[in-house]
């Protein structure tokens, strides 16, 4: 049971990096990849259907941390206080950029929320890098290693975002396999600390009574969760775009 919940936790966190990494990457690269407003609209519209289904992985990570590792929840989040605050503010600003950008037509409005999307994405990547490094070192929130690690996270997310944009645009060589490769790359910065921290996580797992209850209630939801995620990728993946609905303008 302990191993099962460690696995769930690891899977959710790795899933977040693989599935949300490209959204963050596109957000960071928005001014670079999208030179004109039309290009930026196209980039955001390309990632839009995947964002809601991608960011929920981190919400689930927080939930599992609270449910299955309750003593770590307080300890870890508090130890990383400034980084968690920074991560939350970045996350909210990034999402506000997405939700608000297309609500009005004005040039300044779109530019402002495009900027929020970009800045928030950088904030997310940087605070993740710093937080992971601080966790592994068990020390202060700002170290030279942390800064280096943050740069690595920014780098892999940027690569992942670029691959996704290329995959969405289509054309020869822009295969799903290449996207899968960059997803794996984006997951490395979190998979390594997870492997290092596994014994420590196992030491802090909730008592078996709590885990039994969690397993009993959440296990039946897992097939639905997987099906919903697969449905998103089937409905909005590249092949689906040629269909009738391709004429509906994007909401984000």
């Amino acid at each position, binding site marked *: 049971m302990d191993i099962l919940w460690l696995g769930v936790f690891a899977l959710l966190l790795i899933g977040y990096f693989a599935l949300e990494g490209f959204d963050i990457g596109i957000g960071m690269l928005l001014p670079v990849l999208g030179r004109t407003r039309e290009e930026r609209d196209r980039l955001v519209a390309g990632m839009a259907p995947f964002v809601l289904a991608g960011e929920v992985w981190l919400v689930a990570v927080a939930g599992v941390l609270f449910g299955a590792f309750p003593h770590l929840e307080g300890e870890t989040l508090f130890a990383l206080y400034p980084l968690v605050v920074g991560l939350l503010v970045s996350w*909210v600003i990034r999402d506000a950029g997405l939700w608000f950008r297309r609500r009005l037509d004005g040039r300044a409005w779109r530019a402002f929320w495009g900027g929020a999307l970009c800045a928030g994405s950088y904030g997310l990547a940087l605070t993740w890098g710093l937080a992971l490094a601080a966790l592994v070192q068990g020390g202060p929130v700002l170290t030279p290693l942390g800064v280096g690690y943050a740069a690595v996270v920014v780098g892999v997310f940027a690569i992942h975002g670029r691959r996704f944009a290329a995959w969405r645009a289509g054309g020869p060589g822009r295969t799903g396999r290449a996207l899968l490769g960059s997803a794996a790359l984006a997951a490395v910065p979190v998979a390594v600390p997870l492997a290092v921290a596994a014994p420590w996580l196992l030491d802090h797992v909730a008592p078996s009574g709590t885990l039994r209850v969690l397993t009993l209630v959440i296990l039946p939801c897992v097939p639905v969760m997987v099906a919903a995620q697969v449905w998103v990728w089937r409905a909005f993946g590249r092949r689906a775009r040629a269909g009738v609905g391709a004429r509906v303008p994007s909401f984000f």
Partner: protein
Amino acid sequence: MDVLDLARAQFAVTGVLHFLFVVLTLGLAPLVAIMQTRHVITGKPVLERMARFWGQIYVINYALGVFTGLVMEFQFGLSWSGLSRYAGDVFGAPLAVETMGAFFLESTFLGLWIFGWGRLPRWLHLACIWLVTLTAYASAYWVLVANSFLQNPAGAEVRGDHLVLTDFGALLTNPTLVFALPHVLGAGLFTGSSVIIGASAYQLFRRTREWEFFVRSLRVGVVGALVGILVTVGFGFAQFGPVGQIQPGKFRGAAVGTSLGFMILIGELALFGVLFVLTPLLFRDWLARWRWIHPLLMLVTPMPFIAAILGWLVREIGRQPWIVYGRLTVKDAMSPGLTPGMITASFVAFTAVLGLLAVIDYVLIARTVRRGPAAATLGAPGQPDPAAPSSPCHPQAAF
């Protein structure tokens, strides 16, 4: 203010903002789902336009519910690590189930609904909004399970220095939960309906060109408000029994007493108004035709929001000084080592960002109402999709 006051104020501000948006989400989701269902069955275009227009308001509102919810969820670890140390083995479980079994699905299905207009088969697209409603209700249930545990720590025992879960069934059927859940869901339905009534009244008062659209919306709003207010008031009074037994001193303080009094006043006036004025005036659409009554309907639209906040204040202030009633005080639950600098900085950051976004969000909702259904962009047909490559030599193919 000391650190404890600041930490409490931070949670209260985030919680109030969260509740303002969530209460509307809970109410609009089923109403939009009903509109879309009627469209799919009857094929009437006006019903589809209603689902898109009110759906757009629902979606704009949803964004802030998520932002404030994220900040709240993480605040448990930031400011209140003593709670997870003492009661995490019990309290964490319903929150974990909420994130995985409810919110995860709600958000995924909402993405499918928003971006699936015209792409998904009609019935599957309809299923998405019903799944969103169902998971939103499930979310409310699990959050209230967690909250009710704080009001009445049922199903748990003290072992050493912390609580352990002994009876999951008791946690799920907590007496402070069973009447509170329908009370909150009813309040949500009433709030969503009030927004539809107020917005329709605004358009009708302005002699809208969309007469049929807003007359129909007004009818949906009044029926929803009737069901919502009956459930809210009924289950509101039903709570006095169990709460009186479990938390005997709950309503004694001045702040709690005042809040409770005003909330009951709003609730009873609303019940009276909906039952004896709005519902009878649906006869021959008098409510839609009598323009003098429309400004009044617009004026009372904020009332359910105020009542919802007052109700929340009663529930939470009434358990002070306890965070887990009778077991752990709020003071002891605060993260040890939390400094005035930390809490002030995060308080300013969260309040500034969330407060500003909340104002912008309401302006966007008001603007959507003002511009009317013709300008709704959610699921709007007929324009080329920017995500689709326009030509073989697409700029993105360059990298």
